[in-house]
């Protein structure tokens, strides 16, 4: 069930301009630096560039008080949909900021004004080659190597996703290696695996996203999959947040870090390390604060905010924060240092929501901001669990002086096997 | 001199409006208002009026506006030291000495409402009988007006009761130079002073303007205050004095700051041996020198206090903090006055009561004195003390034995620094030298960053010369509240 922009009118009307969508939650603030939470607001400064601003814009569009123009479209698509505004707002209010932003994008697309050309290209690529990069579909599983132990049929599927398949095959390979080491019997969908649809959904191209999602659902159902493992936060987020809007899921979704956490707890995997190193962990938005499963609600809001029936709110409390951390701590000689903006308060890497494709300069600016924070911890490396995050950090950390390394967590786990 | 044809008309109106018994043209009395102990040259007024009520004050202001004659308010008895009450041109001195009612004392809301003529000599015992005290300056003279002292932002002894430089002043009723009546803060309304049941202890506003700040340190140039509410404190059930001897004024800031951060002390101040001996000597001439020689160069006086509940326990805990702080800094906290054991009760009296003996303590050693005072951050007090020493050493009176006083203010974030320059009035040469020192030291200290926040007499041109835009704003305000410029012309930047 997909809601439309009109369904979020109460959210739009309820905004008090309190600013929580722009600033780190008070209890987590640790000083002057690293106290902002919204990349577009921090970069561009005008209130329009914020969760609050987008709500106000959405309301005016809905009321016919604002006309479309190219600058407006760029503003709407400059948001990484990281959800920091949403979670921060939800720490104090009963509002759906991110849902409204996504519904706004869908409306923009429906009205023929969006998305950005780069996103339209992604949709075309998905339609033609089932991946957002426009590469040959047949090359999707070239990351597989003969030494990997895969089953032709299993109830567990590893969903590699477009980024791991085409840009960071080492993530997919490392994941397979880890699953093998832990004795997890799994299969892959091979040619049946299409783009998860997440990038299309987040850019308002809901019909196109639905098409690939329904294909994936059918494929997974066809194989009797009851557990989908992924090593990409974007895919994880799509499965948790988008797919339940289409149908009730017959499988659970696990991130590779959750699997490893379980394997370690069960004694099926032990990690080793000889190199002493300090790392800081970056919580990807779609694995962290935005990873709680979508729960449909179609009730009524009565006087003074009473929701009937009661609504199950997703406020980022139950995101996947512990698993990656416990896994890192299980690697000997690895010293894990936290950034100030961590867990549900993580600062976006800048890659999500179609921003890396449409606004690469701003995307890199955001990644640089996050990298500054990572460097301030004194850690030697930044670790994340998402190929999009890794891509963002790589671009800004590949400096001649090599101040900081960046890793995907699968690399560290694989190295510690 | 007012025009000859105007004075009789003024006299007649004054007599009719406020009663002839409240109007004086006695020459000796008039002359007495034309001079004080400052460097300011005053002019002899034509009248002295003694209002008894707000109605009288309104009438006086009306008459003054009508005839464009200046008014100079005076509320304290002599000796006066700042030149602010000396008329700069002939006109009327408004002596509030007969408006001396303590209108109300409230021990529940801890406040007192006083008319301008109420003095420290009157308020201190009156409050004591109600279990209260007022945060007062160091040994004010008994005939000093409480309200004037508060209005002029005089430094007070208990920094923990100061949240900004306006304490302990609360609300006011004022007749502006325009003749309009106004009440500040929560006294403003709604309603009349009589119908309003508020205790009038909120000094801010009404609205977005702090009118009471605009009257502060104004030397009577903005309005004539007819009553004011001042904050009072609970009289401690127990007080324990401690003395911290210091060799060097650079050591002053650290213990005072540490004590005030923890809010351990009530009265706390630092005096050099000259000032302390001046205050404590039995016979100012005979006993001063040996007492001064016995005292340490500087003494911090710190009073710990317990109130009505578990007073001993409170003092005991604060004493522990005091000792810890002093130990950390390598200092001693003594219960006996170093150099003069046995005078502790006298010290307590000095910091608790107004000065009622004659002469006033500032005139005990010599018949004249000049006081330089300004504000500075507490951390810089030592620096300014040293700077003053350098200026004196370079002056025509290098051996001058002057008093020095550092009073922490506003929770210890600021300090009042004061140097009392004694002067033998019978020696013209000495008078000239000390006056020259007064001016040059003031100038030098100002250039070094001393903040002369109350610019009396010769300080006013020094201050406003470098603050032209502020002076312009003040003149704009003056035009609003005193459009005919009748109130104390020639003061500040007016």
């Amino acid at each position, binding site marked *: 069930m997909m809601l439309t922009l009109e369904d979020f009118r109460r959210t739009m009307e309820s905004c008090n301009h309190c600013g929580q969508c722009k600033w780190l939650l*008070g209890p987590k603030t640790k000083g002057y630096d690293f106290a902002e939470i919204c990349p577009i607001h921090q970069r561009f400064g005008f209130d329009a560039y914020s969760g609050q601003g987008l709500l106000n814009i959405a309301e005016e569009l809905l009321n016919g008080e604002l006309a479309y123009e190219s600058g407006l479209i760029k503003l709407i698509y400059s948001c990484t949909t990281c959800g920091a505004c949403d979670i921060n707002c939800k720490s104090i*209010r009963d509002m759906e900021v991110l849902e409204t932003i996504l519904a706004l994008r869908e409306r923009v697309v429906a009205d023929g004004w969006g998305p950005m050309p780069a996103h339209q290209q992604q949709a075309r690529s998905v339609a033609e080659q089932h991946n957002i990069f426009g590469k040959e579909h047949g090359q999707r599983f070239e990351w597989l190597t003969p030494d990997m132990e895969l089953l032709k049929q299993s109830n567990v599927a590893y969903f590699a996703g477009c980024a791991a398949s085409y840009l960071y095959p080492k993530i997919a390979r490392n994941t397979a290696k880890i699953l093998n080491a832990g004795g997890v019997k799994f299969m892959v969908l091979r040619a049946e695996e299409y783009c998860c649809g997440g990038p299309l959904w987040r850019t308002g191209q809901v019909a196109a996203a639905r098409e690939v999602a329904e294909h994936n659902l059918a494929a997974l159902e066809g194989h009797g999959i009851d557990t989908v493992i992924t090593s990409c936060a974007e895919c994880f987020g799509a499965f948790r947040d988008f797919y339940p809007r289409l149908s009730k899921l017959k499988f659970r979704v696990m991130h590779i870090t959750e699997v490893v956490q379980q394997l370690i707890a069960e004694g099926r995997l032990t990690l080793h390390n000889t190199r002493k190193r300090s790392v800081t962990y970056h919580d990807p938005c779609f694995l962290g604060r935005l990873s709680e499963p979508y729960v449909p609600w179609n009730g009524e809001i009565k006087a003074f905010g009473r929701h009937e029936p009661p609504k199950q709110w997703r406020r980022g409390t139950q995101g996947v924060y512990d698993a990656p951390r416990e896994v890192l701590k299980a690697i000997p000689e690895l010293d894990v240092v936290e950034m100030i903006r961590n867990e549900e308060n993580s600062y976006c890497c800048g890659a999500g929501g179609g921003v890396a494709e449409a606004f690469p300069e701003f995307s890199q600016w955001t990644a640089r901001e996050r990298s500054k924070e990572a460097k301030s911890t004194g850690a030697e490396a930044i670790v994340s669990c998402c190929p999009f995050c890794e891509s963002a950090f790589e671009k800004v950390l590949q400096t001649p002086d090599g101040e900081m390394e960046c890793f995907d967590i699968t690399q560290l786990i694989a190295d510690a096997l | 001199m007012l025009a000859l044809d105007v004075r009789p008309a003024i006299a007649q109106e004054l007599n009719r409006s406020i009663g002839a018994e409240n109007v004086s043209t006695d020459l000796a009395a008039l002359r007495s208002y034309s001079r004080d102990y400052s460097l300011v040259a005053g002019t002899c007024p034509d009248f002295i009026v003694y209002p008894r009520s707000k109605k009288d004050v309104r009438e006086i202001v009306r008459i003054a506006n009508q005839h464009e004659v200046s008014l100079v308010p005076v509320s304290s008895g002599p000796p006066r030291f700042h030149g602010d009450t000396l008329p700069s041109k002939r006109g009327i001195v408004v002596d509030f000495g007969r408006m001396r009612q303590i209108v109300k004392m409230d021990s529940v809301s801890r*406040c007192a409402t006083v008319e301008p003529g109420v003095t420290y000599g009157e308020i201190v015992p009156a409050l004591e009988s109600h279990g209260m005290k007022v945060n007062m300056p160091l040994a004010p003279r008994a005939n000093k007006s409480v309200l004037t002292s508060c209005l002029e932002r005089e430094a007070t002894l208990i920094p923990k009761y100061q949240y900004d430089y306006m304490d302990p002043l609360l609300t006011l009723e004022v007749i502006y130079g325009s003749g309009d009546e106004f009440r500040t803060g929560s006294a403003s*309304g709604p*309603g009349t002073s009589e119908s309003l049941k508020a205790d009038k202890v909120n000094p*801010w506003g009404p609205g977005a303007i702090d009118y009471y700040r605009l009257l502060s340190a104004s030397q009577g140039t903005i309005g004539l205050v007819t009553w004011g509410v001042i904050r009072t404190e609970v009289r401690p059930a127990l007080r324990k004095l401690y003395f911290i001897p210091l060799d060097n004024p650079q050591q002053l800031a650290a213990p005072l700051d540490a004590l005030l*951060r923890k809010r351990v002390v009530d009265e706390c101040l630092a005096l050099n041996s000259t000032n302390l001996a001046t205050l404590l000597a039995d016979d100012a001439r005979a006993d001063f020198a040996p007492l001064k020689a016995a005292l340490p160069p500087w003494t911090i006086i710190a009073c710990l206090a317990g109130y009505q509940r578990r007073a001993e326990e409170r003092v005991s805990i604060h004493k522990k903090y005091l000792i810890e702080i002093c130990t950390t800094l390598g200092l001693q906290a003594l219960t006996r006055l170093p150099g003069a054991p046995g005078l502790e009760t006298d010290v307590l009296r000095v910091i608790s009561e107004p000065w009622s003996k004659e002469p006033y303590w500032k005139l005990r050693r010599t018949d004249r004195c000049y006081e330089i005072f300004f504000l500075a951050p507490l951390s810089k007090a030592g620096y300014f003390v040293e700077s003053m020493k350098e200026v004196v050493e370079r002056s025509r009176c290098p051996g001058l034995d002057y008093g020095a006083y550092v009073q922490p203010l506003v*929770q210890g974030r600021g300090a009042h620094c004061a140097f009392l320059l004694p002067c033998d009035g019978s020696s013209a040469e000495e008078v000239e030298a000390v006056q020259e020192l007064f001016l040059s030291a003031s100038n030098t200290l100002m250039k070094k960053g001393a903040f002369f926040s109350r610019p009396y007499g010769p300080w006013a041109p020094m201050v406003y010369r470098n603050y032209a835009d*502020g002076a312009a704003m003040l003149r704009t305000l003056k035009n609003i509240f005193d459009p005919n410029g009748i109130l104390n012309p020639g003061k500040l930047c007016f």
Partner: protein
Amino acid sequence: MSLPKDVYAELEGIVGPEYISDREYILAAMRHAMPSSPVKPPSPAAVLLPGSAEEIQQIVKVCNRHGLKFIPTVSSLIGFAYPTGPNTIMLQLKRMNRITEINRADRYAVIEPGVRHGQLKTELMKYGLSYPVAAVGPGGSVLVNFACSSGDNHNQHGASRTNRYILGVEWVLPSGELIRLGSLANDAGWFCGDGPGPSLRGLLKGYAGPFGGFGVITRIAIGLDEWRGPAEMPTEGRSPDYQIRLPKDRHKVFIFKFPTLDQLRDAMIEIGKAEIGQAVLKYFNATAALLATQSANHFWDLWDSGLFQRELARPLYVYLATHSAEEMAYEEAVLREIIAETGGEDVDPAIRAIYENNMDFFILVGFLQRVLRLGGAWAPTKLSADSIHHMFEVGKTIPEFLTDFIDKGLIFDAPDNFQIISMEYGHLAHIELLFLWERNQPDWGDVPMQVIARSHETEIRHGHHATMPPRSKPMLEKLGPLYSDCHVWSTKIAEAFGARK
């Protein structure tokens, strides 16, 4: 209504093209109707993000030349930070966001308007320093809070209101000239806000500030107190359920309930006289329930249980923070004596636990905006101060007018939802009545003015001071005569200095 091209060009020449916009989609974020108002504010003509006091001076002069109004703002939380008519530009001061000095010896910090509470409060903690946060959320501007709006806060019993902490000020006047107040006047530094002579700081702020109507404050120094807690907020848990516990031997929270307001009042007065405690307040009960819950439904479960109405009808919150366990034992003993004498009792331990587990109520109050959660409209009234005794007299008259609105179903049923906060060891107290109403009723936009008018009528009838004269020009002219004709003086001052009326 957009700016003429030449005027836009002049302004663009000052701030640069990146920091000015008159695009409708940018302005859309500055003209949203607040939930409490049925009226959408007029659109500003442009929004600017100036970067320095010099730029602001130039902008102000351009505005004066062309008859433009300007509104300085930072977070734009308060309803006054919006245009009331055409020809208005917004100056959002967010780029001016430096802490230019933290002076640990003299205990002050110098800040620009864009420095936020979340940043400054936690930065100062590292140095063992603090200041009272008037709760507006961590994104609220410290400078605006101190110099331009109100400034009452939970901890003003041991500390004070924010206006007390204003030291040196740098201020661009409506003429465009820059003036420095206090010790800055003679290059004596930032430490003192008053003088030389009559304190011009009096023009800056009274009980409340000018809300951006009197030029632009570009820097202030604020005085600092000692911080008695740890160098970092000891936060545990995840949003929205953070736990912040301070060391129990030196930080304790108490909540007592009293049978009558008079007894509560007496306790508050005695605590003040004993000079113990950091926060002493009678808090709102509906607001307390909102702050303690994580959704509207959760609030309703709690509110429908009646617990907060029973336990917190007449509550006294006390927060003690001391330097040693011994001092804590002393303060607690004194407190308990007073409570016993005045007939108070501890509230349900579950309520106390809420505050013990999240002491941010006494630190940053980062979750304050939960009061907005029910999503309808809300408004505060009264909002002034006088003695504790007088504020409780005012509090006792609230049912005289409020019950009517509750009985008619026009506002939320919470007659005890007012707070009285002790200030400066009980020398005075601030009162605020907060009421909520729904937007789904006829003429809902009229409700707040009706309540406020009845509140004020009640005060006038009783001879009570609990409200300062209103800001709006028509109301000020109507009620000013009751407040010593203050409207005459404020108008004269505004006209003399070109302030926005």
